[in-house]
Every structure is written in structure tokens, then in C-alpha cells.
């Protein structure tokens, strides 16, 4: 179980981005976090992974408090995070990155299975550097693969995994998430605006203006969102109205 209690975070300029986030996420279920641009979704992902340190509150994973732990410690405790904007490296190949993610050498057959989940052919990519020669979509898929490769992951956190990914690969990605849901020990969080991902979500959390605006089972929340498309675009506006 991942429990967030009154999680707050301020940006360097002092602006309060997360204003007290509370929710609980059970393993074996897909939780999609959605909300308008600038609502704090990516900040929330960074705070959970430790890329940014919360200024207040509690993040508890299976009874272990994460709030004072750094990125490395959280990763070793099982927090896996796919960046919204993947990082490029000169001199580090796709194989290197996958092996670093897994923590050991990886067999060719396993690489192939992993890469196919994100819509890439191993032979074409495994020895390529994760550098500027890769397109935005290619590097995004490799970023996702680095999370899928994590052996010790208890929490998999994907920030807008659909961005830059073509339809064919996206279908594969949806299947990958559905497969991951079958792991009853895995806490699966996807930040997304994508309707198909919202449709397969067990739970949906809507963030707006740094707070949880609504949260609940997907089959209850999604109809509300779909009833009024403006609610997806701007729940704040809806509330004000």
C-alpha cells in the first residue's frame, strides 16, 4: 500500500505546487492520476520518486516512511519512475540502461520480450546509444522499458507514457499495463490524460490546483469526467461554476 498524507511541495521560487495531497493506492490495481496542465501531476510523481523532496507530509510504502529518503534509497526500496521527459546519454546504450535498471546482465530473450512490450525491435535498438539519434517516441519507449525492467519494483510510476508514442505502440503499452495489473503485489500509477488509459483504470485521481479534486473507482469517476468534457480539461473551472 502506498499512502500519501498531506503531501506538500514548494518550487524553488516559493510557489506552492502541491497543497496537501492525500490518497491511498492498493497494489494489484491501476491508478490513473489525471487533471489539467499545471495542476501538479508531474510534481507529484517527482515527489513520490524523490526527484523532488516534499516540504511537508508523509509518503508511506508498505509501512516504510519515504519522505526523508533520497532518490536512490527510494529506488532500492522499490520505487520505479518513468520520466515524462526522458534523459539522453552519450555513450550509454539501450542495453546498458536496461541492465542498470534490472541490476544485472540481461539475456537476449528477456530483452526481446521487454522491448516488444514497448513496441521496439531488440535487434534495431539494443546496441544503440540513448542519445540524440533517437526520436522522441523511441526514447520515450526506452524510458518505459527501464521501469518495466526493474526487478525489485513495488511501485511503478509512469508520467504521461503515451506522449510521443504511435497508435500501434500505444496499443502494446495498454496491454502491458493490463498485464502489470495482474501482479497483485504491484502498485501501478500512470499519469495520463489518455481516455483509453482512464478506461482501464481501477481508480482515478483527479488533481487540480495542487489538491486532489476527486478520487475513486474508475467506473464511477470516468463517467463524471466524460459527462462534462470541461471537467477533464479544467475541474477547477467546473467547481467554480
Amino acid at each position: 500500500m502506498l499512502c500519501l498524507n498531506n503531501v506538500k511541495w514548494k518550487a524553488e521560487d516559493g510557489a506552492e505546487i502541491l497543497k496537501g495531497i492525500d490518497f491511498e493506492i492498493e497494489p494489484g490495481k491501476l491508478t490513473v492520476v489525471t487533471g489539467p496542465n499545471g495542476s501538479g501531476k508531474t510534481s507529484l510523481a517527482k515527489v513520490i520518486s524523490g526527484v523532488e523532496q516534499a516540504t511537508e507530509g508523509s509518503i508511506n510504502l508498505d509501512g516504510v516512511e519515504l519522505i526523508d529518503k533520497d532518490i536512490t534509497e527510494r529506488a532500492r526500496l522499490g520505487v520505479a519512475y518513468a520520466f515524462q521527459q526522458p534523459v539522453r546519454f552519450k555513450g550509454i546504450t539501450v542495453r546498458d540502461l536496461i541492465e542498470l535498471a534490472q541490476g544485472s546482465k540481461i539475456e537476449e530473450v528477456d530483452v526481446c520480450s521487454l522491448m516488444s512490450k514497448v513496441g521496439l525491435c531488440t535487434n534495431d535498438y539494443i546496441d544503440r546509444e540513448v542519445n540524440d539519434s533517437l526520436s522522441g517516441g523511441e526514447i520515450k519507449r526506452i524510458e518505459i522499458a527501464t521501469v518495466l525492467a526493474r526487478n525489485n519494483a513495488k511501485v511503478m510510476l509512469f508520467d504521461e507514457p503515451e506522449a510521443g508514442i504511435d497508435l500501434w505502440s500505444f496499443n502494446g503499452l495498454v496491454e502491458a499495463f493490463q498485464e502489470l495489473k495482474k501482479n497483485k503485489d504491484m502498485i501501478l500509477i500512470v499519469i495520463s490524460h489518455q481516455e483509453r488509459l482512464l478506461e482501464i483504470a481501477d481508480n482515478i485521481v483527479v488533481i487540480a490546483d495542487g489538491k486532489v479534486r476527486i478520487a475513486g473507482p474508475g467506473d464511477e469517476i470516468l463517467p463524471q469526467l466524460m459527462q462534462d468534457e470541461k471537467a477533464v480539461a479544467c475541474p477547477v473551472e467546473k467547481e467554480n461554476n
Partner: protein
Amino acid sequence: MDKITESLLKLVSDWDDDVYNGAYNIRENGGCAGRQSTDNIKIEPKEGGKGIDIYIKEGTKDEKVYIPACISKSNVEDLVYNDFHVGENADVTIVAGCGVHTDDEEGSSHNGIHRFFVGKNARVLYEEKHVGTGEGGGKRSIDPVTDCQLEEGAVLEMNTQQLSGVDHSIRTTTGKLEKNAKLIIHESILTEGDQYAKTDFEVDMVGEDSAVDLISRSVAKDDSYQEYHSKIKGESRCIGHSECDAILVGNGKVNAAPELFAGDLDASLIHEAAIGKVAGEQILKLKTLGLSDEEAEKRIIDGFLNA
């Protein structure tokens, strides 16, 4: 050959099981510690023992020649002249490399003056590693000078690495490329402490459709200082590309001064350069995979230098 030389050979070349598979010349402390020719590759000493001529027969394929030079003690100033005569249509690998070891406050140096005469349509892969080892403050210097003359259609690919422990290095490389000739140079340099390294390239593309691709990656740590200067001259329809990337760690400093000269309307010359510290986002990404700060930085630098 002493044990230190053997350990240096393992670091700078494919030395394994006390043998090289192919032609070789091992230079130790200014003298010859072993030499072997093959049917296709003849190694002959120059007069006065100041170097060797390596003759590679026309059409020689898939053979390697090893010419490592090692210094295993202090107070050695080694200067050697090696000339490579590569016959037409040959396709060979040359493994060079130099290690300098000192264990006291006295220094040692190795200056290798290499000239490559690469015949028509021949291909050469040249691999070279430099390393310094040992205790004490004696300066370990390696100052290679290389000149490449590439005939029509010749291809020379040079992969050079300065691994660690070399206190002073000035690397000078010049080249002249005839029609359709291609020169590819990938160098990587690591300096630490108060080491100094300078790279100076000047390549002249005189032949039509000749090409040069020069990629330099360096890491300057601690208080070390590196200088990079390249001059690519395009005097006909040709393609030249140079890329100089450097990472600074601690108080490391790098001065990069690339230069392009186009003397023909159809010369296409490009230079790219980037100097900076290890990108914070790269460290963050590797930390999210479970690496510590130190492990992440090391992995990024190792990958950068070995690419």
C-alpha cells in the same frame, strides 16, 4: 621482458597468455623485447635502432599487427620512429598502445613518431591506448606525433584512448587525404589531479569526395587541464565533421578551439562542441534506477569515454 611490462601490455593491448596472434614488435624501455613478422607483414628495424618500418603487403586481409611500447622504470626518455607502409587493398588492424610506469620521484617519457602511408583502397583500423601506472610523483609523459597520408580510396580509422595516470601528453596528428579517402578518428582522454593533455589535429582534404570524421570526448577531473585544437581544411568537394565534447569534474578545465577552413565551394564542414559538467538530469535518472551519486557519475563518465 619484466613483469611490469607484461602488466602494461595487458592494459594497452590484447596481450593475453603471453602471446600475440600475428606480427608484433614489443618495445621495452627503448629496446626491442620481441619481434615477429608474418608472410604478409614484415617488421624491419630502422638503422640505429630508433624505430621500425612495418610493411603490409598488398591485399593482406584480416591480419593484426601489434606494436606496443612500454616503459617500466623511471629516467627513460624514449623516442621512436615507426613507419607503416600499407599496400593497396589491404584490410588490417594495427594495435599500438603505450604504458609508462614509474615508482619514484623521477619521470619517464615516450615519444612515438608514427607515419602512415596507406595505399589505394586499403583499410586500416588503428587502436591505441595510453596509460600511466606506479607510485611516486615522477612525471609520466606520452607525446605521440602521427602523420597520415591516405591515397585514393584509403580508409584509416583511429581509436585512441588515454586511460589514466598520464601526467603530460601532447598529441599531434596531421593528415592528407586524396580522392575518396576517409579518415575517422575517435579519441577519448581522461585527466586527473594536475595532469595536462593537449590534442592538436590538422587534416587536409585535397582529394574530391574525401572525408574526415573527428570525434573527441574528454573528461577533465580535479585540477587537470586539457586543450583541444583541430583544424580541418577542405580544399575540394569533401565532407568534414568534428565533434568535441568534454565533461568537467571538480576544478577541471578545458580549452577547445576548433577551426574549419573551406577552400572550395563544395567543401562541407561542420563542427560541434560542448563542454560542461555531468548533466544533473542524467545523475537523477540513474539514481532512480538505484545508483548512488558516485556510481551514477562514474557510469556516465565511463560510458562517455568508452563510446
